[in-house]
């Protein structure tokens, strides 16, 4: 008996609707965020992640209303990210009912944001999202992953493992690690990446990007050493329920909250 591994459905929200992208590009509508959040809660989701991918600043406040509505009905931890640039953005999301706020691009542009937000609100509510892509080496050296920002468009030159360590030092409480190579492919997590980051730091790591079936969740935990696994499309389109996923993990000897 001990700490359960977590299954976390991810809801990408664009202009108030849940959508699902493929390789961060084309979007497909998956429904109403509040309704979907309620359904996942009933199915036993351990947490929920909302990523606001709304491009237009006009529609930015929609996410606050969604978070408010979800937080009044769903009593599990809620992580919200997307467009968080300043400590004030963190405050607004927490006040709307988010339990954790995830920062990605802004952490790269201004690492001090992570330190400031953690010292104001505590490390427990600061999640650093890292979008990492495998980069080829000239020599036969160990694999390397680079941090990308702006939804995967911009290379930063930062090494993902070193970046994760730096975020831990600055006060992050958790790392949400997405493989850009795998996201939307349904070919499974980048296990080498997940394993490398999870073993390099003390913080819990949520593996993300590439889940196409329940075996991928098992691999992410057993081989990737992830503390939690995040998936979207296998849950959004009814391929599997959260409960099925948990039973599958339990069958493979993984401790879950059933």
């Amino acid at each position: 008996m001990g700490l359960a591994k977590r299954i976390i459905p991810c809801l990408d929200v664009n202009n108030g609707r849940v959508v699902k992208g493929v390789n961060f590009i084309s979007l497909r509508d998956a429904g109403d965020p509040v309704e979907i959040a309620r359904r996942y809660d009933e199915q036993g989701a351990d947490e929920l992640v909302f990523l606001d991918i709304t491009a237009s600043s006009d529609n930015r406040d929609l996410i606050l209303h969604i978070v408010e509505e979800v937080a009044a009905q769903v009593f599990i931890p809620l992580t919200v990210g997307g467009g968080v640039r300043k400590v004030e953005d963190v405050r607004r999301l927490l006040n709307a009912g988010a339990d954790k706020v995830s920062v990605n691009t802004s952490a790269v542009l201004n690492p001090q944001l992570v330190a400031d937000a953690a010292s104001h609100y505590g490390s427990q509510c600061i999640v650093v999202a890292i979008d990492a892509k495998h980069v080829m080496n000239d020599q036969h050296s160990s694999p390397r992953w680079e941090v990308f920002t702006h939804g995967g468009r911009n290379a930063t030159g930062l090494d993902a493992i070193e970046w994760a360590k730096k975020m831990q030092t600055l006060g992050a409480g958790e790392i949400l690690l997405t493989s850009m190579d795998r996201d939307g492919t349904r070919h499974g997590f980048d296990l080498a990446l997940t394993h490398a980051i999870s073993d390099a730091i003390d913080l819990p790591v949520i593996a993300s990007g590439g889940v196409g079936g329940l075996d991928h969740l098992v691999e992410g935990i057993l081989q990737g050493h992830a503390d939690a696994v995040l998936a979207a499309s296998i849950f959004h389109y009814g391929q599997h329920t959260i409960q099925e996923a948990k039973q599958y993990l339990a069958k493979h000897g993984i401790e879950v909250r059933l």
Partner: protein
Amino acid sequence: MTDIAIVDYGMGNLRSVSKALEHVAPTASIVVTSDPSVVQKASRVVVPGQGAMPNCMRELTGHGLKDAVLEAARNKPFLGICLGLQMLFDESEEGNVKGLGILPGKVRHFSHDAMIDSDKNKLKIPHMGWNQVHQTTQHALWKGIANDARFYFVHSYYVEPVNSEITAAYTLYPTPFTCAIAKDNIFAVQFHPEKSQLAGLTLLSNFTKWEPHLNR
């Protein structure tokens, strides 16, 4: 009159605590307050709190709420959550600050050296996620909650009471630590009932109905 006061001393988000209490006690008057007189007049008091202990103790004093919290802990149904549990003890290793000293004992950090489970896997700090709560006492707040039910935790420090009789439950990470204490009118937990779905809502509902025997 306020039925339940949630003490707001500027440490994090109290909205989820108030939403969860409103959900289980829809007719009760529930307020989030930083006004000591509102805390004094309330029939029940909840002290949540997230973040770091040094800030917590500073903010509590700075908001003039320390006396109101001490008084509530003496004479009315009192629920501490997370830092609201830790602050009840003598002192914390986090920043080496003094707590309220209502309960003898210390708040300690998980030891990095000992964080290996029985399968030799590294355990992460903070302790984050759903872990089992093993009840060691009968208590009104455990009513309807299965022993070893899972609750949501997120913390790097835990309490170590001098008197083990006040421990109401423990959790393994990887060794047992006290995750709930009960003494007279005080019940306090390290986990977050407001984020622990049905088990958590049941505990909060039990608190809104709890009539402890008070030794005034």
